[in-house]
Structure formats: C-alpha cells, structure tokens
C-alpha cells in the first residue's frame, strides 16, 4: 500500500490540493480530506465504464484502432469549413494549448464551458471590471461573506471550510470547531422549529413569502464573521446563514439595484422590491455597509437566469460602490476544476477568453454569434469536437439536435451521453488522476495536478491525442497542397 499526499482534486473550481490517498494496486482504498464528490471520484475511479476507440458505421458505433479513430477525427476536421472545438474545462492547460494550435490549423471556433456557465460573468467583467482576490484573502481577512445564487454546499463543498465561513485565518480566528459542536447540539432544536414553522405556513395557506429571513440564531450568533445567503431556495448554505434572503427567480437584478441605491443612502419610493419588503433590504444594506472587509461570491444562479450578464454587472457595481465604504471583493464560483484555466490559456493566446472564432486566421470574439450554443442554434457549424465535456447531456435539446446533424468527435475517458451518440470516440486518460498538468483554481491560482496512476494501455493524455490529430491534419493538408502543384514543378 502506498500513501500519496497533497493530491489535487480534479473536480470543482476549489481545486483542493490537500487530499491524501491510500492506494493498493490500481485501487484507491481511502481518501482523506476530500469532500463527498472528490472522495467518490477517487474511490470509484477504477469502476467507470471506460470508452474504447470507435467510429460510427451504418448508424452503429464500431470499435476500431486508436490510430483509425484519430485519423477519422483529423479527416473530419480538415474537411470542415466551420468546426467547433468545445469542452476544455476538465482537462489540463497543456491540452488547451495544443487545442488552440489545432483550432488555428483547421480554422475553428474554440469555446469551452464558460460559454454555458460564467460566460455572462466575463461579459460583465469586460464592462465594469472585477474586485478580485485569491481565496487566502477570504480566509484571513473577510468579516462578511455573501453567497448569491450559489450553492456551495452542493457544488463547492469545501469552500466553506477552506476559504470562507469555517476557515481559520491570520486575522480571523476560526469558529468552526466551536460552532460545529454547537451546531450538532442545536440540530434537534432546529428540527422542532422547522416543524412548527411548517405548521404555521400550513395554517395560513399563503403564509410563505419570498424574502423570509432568519435572524441570527443558533451557533453563529456571536461570531465576528457574518454569512449572508441570497438564493431562490433554502439551500444547505442558507440554513447556516446569519441572514437568508429568499428571492423570486429572475428578480435578482432589481434587488441588487435597489441595494445599490440603499447603500448610497438613497430612498426607495416603494414598499417592496420584487416582493421583498424594503425594510428587509434596508437591513441587508445596513449589514453591507458595516462590514470592514467583505466578499460577494456569486454563482450561476445569477448568470443563467433573466438578465444574465446584466445581473453580474449590477453585482460587480454593487461591490465597486461598497469599496467607497469598506474593502469589498467579488468572485464567480467557477464550476469545473479547470474552467478558469481554459479561460486563462485562451486569453493569453488570442486575447479573448471563450467563444473565439479563428476561422478567419485571426481571433474574433463575439459571444451571441461565435458562442457554441448560438452557432448550434443557427445550425452553422459543420463538425463538432468535444473534449473533456458532455454537451449532449448539458446543452438544451435544440442545440444538441443541430449538433448531431454533423459529424461529432468525442474525446473522453468515460462513457457519457456525448460518447454514446458521437460519430468518433477517442478514449483518453483521466486528467488529474492518470495525467498531470496545470489547472487554475477559481481565483486564478495555478496548481499542478498530480498523476496518481499510470493510464491503462491505449489511453493517451488529451494533450497527446490532440498533438496526433494536429499532425494528422497537417499531413492531410500538406497532401492537399501538394496535389495542387503539378509533379516536377
């Protein structure tokens, strides 16, 4: 048995780098320090249904050699006029760098998961900027933490413990140990309260109203670090908050703008904003302006609902305004472990973070036109390469229907909705487990992934697969160019 320490977890944007694995043979026996997802990822790593190299012939996927699958992929890309290369957020930066070369070579659109998660955040940043930081700042300094439209206890489980509410910092002593014990001891009490509350609501049929909030209670009453959660549902995080603001879906924009007015001491001439009584907002604004160092973590709850980038623009502006009163920061809660890295690499190479059109020989960027979903909805692209992502599962149906009208190449270590319907499947090694490389944490801190296992025979790293496709494309194009020159000339 061997123990590997300080392993980096290749799941979410937290990119925790303190995992400890106990390994026997090709199996992980125990995982320490990880969250449930990270633990599951390593514990069951060997049990996945892995892909095999396949090509669709007469409507059925047929197993072929790896070389044949790569050759077929290259042929499709070399022939295509307007291909899209999509994915990238769950592979290493090294692979993205080769991907960009491939995109230039074949004249493609290169786009990644930002397009369908925090793309609107990027658009907002390009309008107004961003008061950012690395997560250690959050741990050491912040006395007010807000999660807005983000559900950290479901999607970034250790964010609380490592970087925010429960973390310990130089200037912010941890309350976690004390609070966790208290938390457990008050669980029973809370359950009773919840039942009572439920009964009350039942009594008054329409008793529930959005904007319901919880006064500081239970374990967190005395602490010097406040937690505010704004969400459409009472998420796990909301249940721990000092202040929970439940908003109606699609109304965040109004509420943020109302808050901006309130922190500037302007009066709101209405009784409620999007169903929330103005007094509630005033109380929230009061907490905001009384913070010394604060942060607003926002999630896709803001980017995916009505208003999209305008919601983020408002949130960033709110934080910017708050900087006149205190030190305030804002950060998008990035999902996939290297979606930030894909942003970063594509930006340093082309100047733009996603939805980059290289079909003209130079980078063009116009989300709404060059973004994958829009290209698909217009049915413009004539080939689609998907790497380390599962768009068939995660794109809206109409986009997928158009995607499947044209050749689809899927590079993935495991069977997914996309590999099931693809025309060419190329198996790859697990990035972050079977291959190392670089990934960027949600706050742009680059971390080197650890290789824990050798990949099985025939499973190459993404970087290597792309290099082979690139070489094959160049060979095909070279031949085509040769064919234009008469022999002997």
């Amino acid at each position, binding site marked *: 048995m061997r123990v590997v320490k300080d392993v980096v977890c290749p799941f979410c944007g937290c990119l925790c780098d*303190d995992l400890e694995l106990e390994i026997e043979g090709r199996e992980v026996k125990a995982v320490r320090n990880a969250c449930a997802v990270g633990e599951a990822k390593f514990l069951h790593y060997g049990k996945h249904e892995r892909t095999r190299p396949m090509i669709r012939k007469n409507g059925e996927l047929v197993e072929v050699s790896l070389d044949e699958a790569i050759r077929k992929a290259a042929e499709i890309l070399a022939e295509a006029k307007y291909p899209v290369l999509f994915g990238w957020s769950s592979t290493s*930066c090294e692979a993205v*760098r080769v991907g960009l070369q491939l995109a230039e070579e074949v004249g493609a659109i290169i786009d990644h998961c930002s397009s369908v998660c925090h793309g609107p955040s990027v658009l907002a940043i390009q309008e*107004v*900027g961003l008061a950012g*930081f*690395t997560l250690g700042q959050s741990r050491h300094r912040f006395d007010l933490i807000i999660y807005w439209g983000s559900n950290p206890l479901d999607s970034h489980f250790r964010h609380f413990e490592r970087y925010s509410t429960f973390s310990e910092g130089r200037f912010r002593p941890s309350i976690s140990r004390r609070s966790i014990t208290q938390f457990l001891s008050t669980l029973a009490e809370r359950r009773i309260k919840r039942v009572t509350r439920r009964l009350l609501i039942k009594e008054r049929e329409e008793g529930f109203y959005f904007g319901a909030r919880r006064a500081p209670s239970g374990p967190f009453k005395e602490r010097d670090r406040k937690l505010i959660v704004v969400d459409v549902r009472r998420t796990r995080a909301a249940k721990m908050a000092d202040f929970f603001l439940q908003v109606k879906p699609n109304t965040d924009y109004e509420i943020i703008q109302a808050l901006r007015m309130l922190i500037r001491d302007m009066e709101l001439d209405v009784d409620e904003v999007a169903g929330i009584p103005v007094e509630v907002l005033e109380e929230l604004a009061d907490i905001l302006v009384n913070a*010394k160092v604060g942060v607003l973590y926002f999630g896709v709850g803001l980017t995916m609902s009505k208003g999209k980038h305008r919601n983020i623009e408002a949130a960033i502006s709110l934080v910017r305004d708050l900087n006149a009163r205190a030190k305030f920061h804002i950060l998008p809660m990035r999902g996939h472990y290297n979606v930030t890295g894909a942003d970063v690499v594509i930006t*340093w*190479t082309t100047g733009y973070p996603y939805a980059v059109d290289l079909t003209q020989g130079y980078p063009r960027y116009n989300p709404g036109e060059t973004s994958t979903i829009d290209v698909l909805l217009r049915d413009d692209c004539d080939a689609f390469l998907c790497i380390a992502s599962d768009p068939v599962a995660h794109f809206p149906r109409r986009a997928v229907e158009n995607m499947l009208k044209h050749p689809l190449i899927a590079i993935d270590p495991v069977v997914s909705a996309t590999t099931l319907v693809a025309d060419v499947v190329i198996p790859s090694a697990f990035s972050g487990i079977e291959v190392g490389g670089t990934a960027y944490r949600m706050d742009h801190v680059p971390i080197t992934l650890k290789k824990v296992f050798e990949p099985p025979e025939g499973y190459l790293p993404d970087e290597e697969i792309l290099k082979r496709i690139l070489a094959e494309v160049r060979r095909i194009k070279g031949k085509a160019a040769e064919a234009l020159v008469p022999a002997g000339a």
Partner: protein
Amino acid sequence: MAVLLIKNGYVYDPINGVDGERMDIAVKDGKIVEDVDEREARVIDASGMVVMPGGVDIHAHIAGAEVNAGRLLRPEDHVKDVEPRTAITRAGVGYSIPSTFTTGYRYTRMGYTTVMNPSMPPLEARHTHEELSDTPIIDKASYPLLGDSWFVLEFLSKDMIEECAAFVAWMMWATRGYAIKIVNPGGLETWGFGGNVRDLNDEVPHFGITPREIVRGLCKVNKLLNLPHTIHVHTNNLGVPGNCETTLKTLMCVEDLAEDGERAIHITHCQFSAFLGDDWATMESGAPLIARYMNRHSHATIDMGQVIFTDTTTMTADGPFQYGLHLLSGNKWINHDVETETSSGIVPFRYRRTSRVHATQWCIAQELALLIEDPWKIYLTTDHPNGGPFTSYPRIVSWLMSVKAREEELKRMNRRAVKRSVLPTIDREYSLYEIAVITRAGPARALGLENKGHLGVGADADIAVYPLNPEEVDPSRDYKLVRRAFSRAAYTIKSGEIVAKDGEIVKAPDGKTYWVDVKVPEDLWEAVKSEIAEVWEDYYTVRFSNYPLTDHYLKISSPITRQARM
C-alpha cells in the same frame, strides 16, 4: 547552427566602446566569435546600416496574471489590432496588451531580444512562466514580488536578515525568479484591509515594520545573495502629487548600503514617482530634483516610464494606486489581491495631450532622460503597458535624438504644462551610441546579464541591424527616418539565427528563461525551511509541497548560479 557574417555595418557597442565604427560581426553556434570562414558563412550585407546588440527591456509587463486579466478586461483593445497567422507565426491580437505570441513577434521586429517581466506574484508564478513559454523568440526573466510577503515582513521586523535571505533564495528557485521586486512596500499588505501607507516611516499594521525597513532589509538581502540585479523598486505614493520627496527618501535610505561604485537600487518607471505639488492642480515636474540627485550619486539606476498619448491599459501590483486611478478616471477596474504576498490592479487609461497632468508626465520622463548626464543610469521604458505600449519605443528614441521631434510634440500639448516645464530649454540630443546605452548596454549591465547587451567575443549573438545610415541621416532633422528604422529592423538575429528580416518574422524559435539559482548555506536553509513549513498551511491555501514550480514550466531554463555571501 548557422554561421553568420554581418559585414560593413556601423557598429554601436557601448560596452566594448565601439561607437559607429564600420566593422564585421561574426557569429557561430549562437555566439559572437572573433571571425568565421566567409565561404561557410551566410553573409549579411549591413553596409549603410546600424548594427547594435539586441535590445534589452528592463521593465515591461508582458506575461502573467495581471497582464492576462488586462487582456480579458479589454476586448475593445484587441479588436482594432489583429495579427493573422502565417506559415511561421501564430495568430494573435495586439495593441496595449498583446497576446503572448504577438508580444514575441513585435519585440523581435523592433530588434529587441531580451525582455524582463517585472511583476510576478509568487503564488501565481506558474501562470507567468506558462505565458512566457508561449512568448516566442525573445529571452526573458521575471521578478517575483517580495516586498509585502508575510515571511519577508516577519523576518525583517525581527531583523533576521540572513534568514530572510535564505527565504528569498528559496523563492527565487520556487518561482524561477530573477530579481527582488518591491512594489509600494508595506502598502500592498495594508491594502488587504483597504488601507495604504503614505510615508517611508509609516508602520504597516499588524507587522510592526515600516517601508524604509522593508527597502533597506531587502537591499541587504540582495547584497547577501549576490543577485545579478539590484532591488527593483516601485516607490510608495506612486502617481501621487508630491511623491518626488518619497522617491528621494527611498533613494537616500539605501545610500549607505552601497560600497564604492556598487549599485544598490533601481527605481523603476521613475516618471510616475517624480511629481511635485500638493494636489493635481499644483502638480508639476520633480524631474530636475531627481536628475540632480542621480547626477551626484552612483548607487542607483532608474528607468523612464515614458507616457505616450494614446489609449492604454495601466496595470501594477499597486492595488491602492489602481483603485485611486479608477476613482479618478471612472474607468472599469480590476483588483486582484494575492494572499500573503501582494495585490494588483488594472484600469484602462487614455493619456491626453490636452491634459495638463498628462502632458507634464510626458515632459517628466523626457526631462529625466535628458537631465541625467550619464546614460548608464537611466533606461528607456514606458513601463509597458502603463505609460504606453512597447511598440512606441521608436518614437521615444526619436524624441531623445531630436530637439525638433520634441518641439513637434510640445507644440500640440497642453500650454500650461509646457510653460512650466524646463524641457523646451534643453537642447541635448542623444547620439546613436547613447541610444544603444539606454536600450541595450545599460539595462544588460544593470541586470548583470553578462552575455547580453554587447557584441564582444563570447556574447550571445543577439543582434539588431537597423536600416539607417548614420553618415547620411541626421537624426536631429530626419527623426522620422530614425523612428521608421527602429520600428522595423532590417535583421533581427537571436542566438545566432535570423528571426526577422525587414520587419517580418522568418523564424520563431523558443527563447530562454533566466532565473537565479542562489546557493545558501545548507544548515541555514534547513532551519528556515522548518520555520516556514510549520506555518505555511496557516498562511497559504496551497500546500507547501505544491507551491514551488518545476522546470516543466520553462521551455528553455537558464539558471544563473550565484553563491550567497554568508
């Protein structure tokens, strides 16, 4: 490797005292050699042209977290300036914050072959090096930001200079860094809580140390470690009227640390730190004061930080300054505080001729370059992209070489600024020899890059050939020809290979990355290591073992080995 013979050029090689002599330069295996067999060599006819060592830029933000955040922030900057791919070059975008490949090509076209990337947050060093390895052709190095690192502040506040030195030596290895960069010492830590320091004697909250002690402490560390460059300082109060006093105090505070003729400090983009006045209404040039000080002392060097009247992107590690600039301009603002180490900020900015303040800034940089008598003490920069993009260097060269060129600019500038400046009374004009000093020989010497900045036997064969005939062209009168020549080198040779011809890239090899490998006594390092390892996880959100980067991040790693003086 190619064998080259550059024949009959007018050679300007200040380190070897060559001032426009017509001579041949021979190149073999990437180095300058005594001579080569002409029959084997590729002969470059440089008759009627200027031959200089490849340009060396001592301070240009070309890669890393903040540069890239600037790229992300400004699609409007890229859309007006694109670089299509060719059979040899990659596609990219330009203007004030070019993409990495474009950066390499554009420096090469101007005959520059070595560029120092001055501001690397140690925690994000991997990012910097990933970008640098995608920046082709040119050689490069980065300065890690160490002036506000908690470990540095703690060691220095306890006066543990040797321990601090051991830590800095480790940091140079862990981040593959080249020189100690100090930005607004103490101010960046204070900015973590939204504050700033205003004076060299202000105390940094929670750390019991002053900016003066940080600068002096790191200056001592720099000497102990025998680093090739001095400390590289961005002063407190940068961009604030009246900061001239802070700058002079900073220069003075290390006077006693320099032994005869040795250099102790480099004040970077000095223009931004040379303001007199109490507020923006009374702001004026402090350049004459700084120049007078520089003329009387030899322990310091500076670079210009020239502003260009254009739309550019400001980016520094000076978080509070950038926030101030955001408030002043109302432009969009990125802030990025890096835990335990530093901060940074980005604000797009347009310098306008009609603005009195901006025009004064333009004059300050020119005054510094023209009033400091010894060109070996001042180097040409724009603090790219803060004062303007590096592609404007040829214009700065033309201004320095021609009173007439300066007059043309001054004519169109804010009248009040010009009236209060001494610039119109200065008739000094740089010679080509002096230009060679401030653009290559001087910076190379200040950086301790022994094989750069000259054309002596054994030097790296990094050479620029400019289409300019010094016998026919009078730079004072025909400054536009000078400008054109320095924009597009006839040949740029990098490590003995022709990489650009007539301003077009003909080959794009990878460049080297320099870093300093300092040997400190083993037992000292072990003691310091156990001390920092103990608290590491309390300070950082990245594990100690995952912090240092590997050589995998450097395409061509070029360590410079030094022995610490302890």
